[in-house]
């Protein structure tokens, strides 16, 4: 997995996909769905660092997604902060909160860690629901829009808003993937993967286990927060659902479905679980049943996730 070409190959695949996808698009709807894929992929890339590299579960990451989203909504509406600055504020806030709660939470393991992160996410969602004077309560709130069209116009390009968002979110996703890929082979990344395999062995080898876990948690929180901010600005409307338990589960499922150990896997998982429900709506009532069956089947038959399992199968096939 750590062959030197891997990183470049992943980035090239992603860039080619993003550049080529519009060739098959017919209309704004496709651009919007693809933008959602990129936004989810950003949050999922953070979870690849946490779950895939460091081996720690979080069932509360939608909480950070929600913090990022509401930072843009509240910052711009109540304090008049420019939306782009709000993304940064949300990221710093999420990182700080992750640092504060991460210390005690990350001492826990397995199901205990799961329930603690779950509790954290639920607290965030509940605060967003109940502090109606700030957040509009369960009905949600309108987010001031940013229009990336203007930037393209500056460069002399004429694009529709949906198309501009597509390139913007795609670019952020690439940058996110690039950072995560670089992290993997850095000293910290190797430390994380060491503690994934065996915490005790990592500790014996001199890894600061607590520090490394905390680092992964903070990084993944920042990813989720940026994704949340982008989602709020893109959607121009936000409800506490963005932070709730089901969204956390959705993010973790995307991560593991595609293959938590690989950045590309996470992105494929995000694409699959963003596009699939859109496609499944034709089956209406059977939508959730189908989705659940797919989740179970992939976990049972492709335990390491789609991308690593498929890559393995291809490699093993006699040439």
């Amino acid at each position, binding site marked *: 997995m750590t062959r030197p070409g891997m990183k470049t190959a992943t980035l090239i695949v992603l860039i080619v996909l993003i550049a080529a996808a519009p060739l098959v698009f017919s209309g704004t709807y496709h651009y919007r769905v693809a933008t959602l894929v990129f936004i989810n992929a950003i949050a999922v890339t953070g979870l690849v660092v946490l779950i895939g590299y460091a081996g720690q579960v979080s069932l509360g990451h939608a909480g950070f997604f929600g913090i990022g989203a509401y930072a843009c909504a509240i910052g711009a509406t109540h304090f008049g902060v420019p939306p782009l600055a709000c993304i940064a504020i949300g990221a710093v806030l999420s990182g700080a909160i992750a640092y504060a709660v991460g210390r005690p939470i990350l001492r826990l393991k397995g199901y205990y860690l*799961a*329930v603690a992160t779950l509790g954290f996410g639920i607290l965030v969602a509940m605060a967003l629901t109940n502090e109606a004077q700030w957040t509009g309560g369960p009905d949600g709130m309108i987010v001031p829009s940013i229009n990336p069209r203007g930037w393209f116009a500056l460069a002399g390009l004429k694009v529709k808003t949906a198309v501009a968002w597509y390139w913007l979110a795609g670019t952020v996703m690439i940058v996110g993937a690039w950072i995560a890929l670089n992290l993997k082979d850095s000293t910290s990344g190797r430390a994380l993967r060491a503690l994934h395999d065996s915490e005790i062995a990592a500790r014996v080898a001199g890894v600061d286990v607590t520090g490394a876990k905390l680092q992964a948690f903070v990084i993944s929180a920042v990813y989720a927060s940026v994704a949340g901010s982008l989602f709020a600005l893109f959607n121009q409307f936000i409800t506490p659902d963005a932070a709730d338990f089901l969204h956390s589960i959705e993010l973790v499922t995307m991560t593991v479905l595609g293959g938590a150990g690989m950045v590309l896997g996470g992105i494929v998982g995000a694409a699959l679980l963003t596009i699939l429900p859109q496609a499944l709506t034709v089956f209406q009532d059977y939508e959730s049943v189908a989705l659940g069956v797919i989740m179970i089947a992939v976990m049972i038959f492709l335990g390491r996730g789609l991308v690593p399992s498929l890559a393995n199968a291809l490699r093993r096939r006699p040439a």
Partner: protein
Amino acid sequence: MAELLQFLFSGLTVGAVYALVALGFTVIYNASGVVNFAQGEFVMYGGMITVFTYDAGMPLWFAAASAVAITCLIGIVLNRLAIEPARGASVVSLIIITIGASIVLRGIAQIVFDKQIHRFPAFSGDTPLLVGGATVLPQSLWVLGGAAAIFAALYVFMTRTMTGKSILATANNRLAAQLVGVNVKVVMLLSFALSAAIGAIAGVLVTPITLTNAGIGVGIALKGFAAAVLGGMGNPAGALVGGLLLGLIEALTAGYLSSSYKDAAAFVVILLVLFFMPGGLFAARTVERV
């Protein structure tokens, strides 16, 4: 005083349900090491099947009994199709598998039944009893009595019968149990049936008070899971204490602080307990293997 008593009653009633759900988690966790997030769907099926069988003209006791029986079957099928094939998967994979199962079960309930809110009549009427100035629904007594009976029955079953002991043996050490002739597969099947039955009974008992619909499973599973972890995962006594405690905390927060933050109080307490007692109130007996 009457007010406090009122909160205590409602807290204990809800807490008894959480305790039953936590007990369901415990039974499966002990036999298989899996936390079954579809546990809340067992409660939902218990209530929903009773509603629809009762509305079809069957007597209430028959409706309830068939609900428990059918839910048992659902538990067995769940084990056979989703849990058994995933033997040895990681914690994250198992979480996703059982959440996937819960999504499937909820979806099926929406198709087979509907998405409306339902109830069936309380077992012995809706006339509240007066106790020390507080009112108690007769159905609350059914819930409390039912929970107590299930805990007692399970205790006897686990410690006095050969089958119960083989479940305990499997929980303790799967391989050793196999070596002394315990059929681990049957134990797994049994614990899923048992856990589903416990969940369904909880659903039957509480539906006249809390009402039901196809979507209640997730919330119940989260509370039950939280209660189980609060008590110490895998410990039946912990499930009982954790569940009751959770119910009481919620009721007291709702009564004295803020009803919109009652769920928050529960999770804050759980976070605090976990920070200071990372193994829950009744820390698990199992030794971590290195």
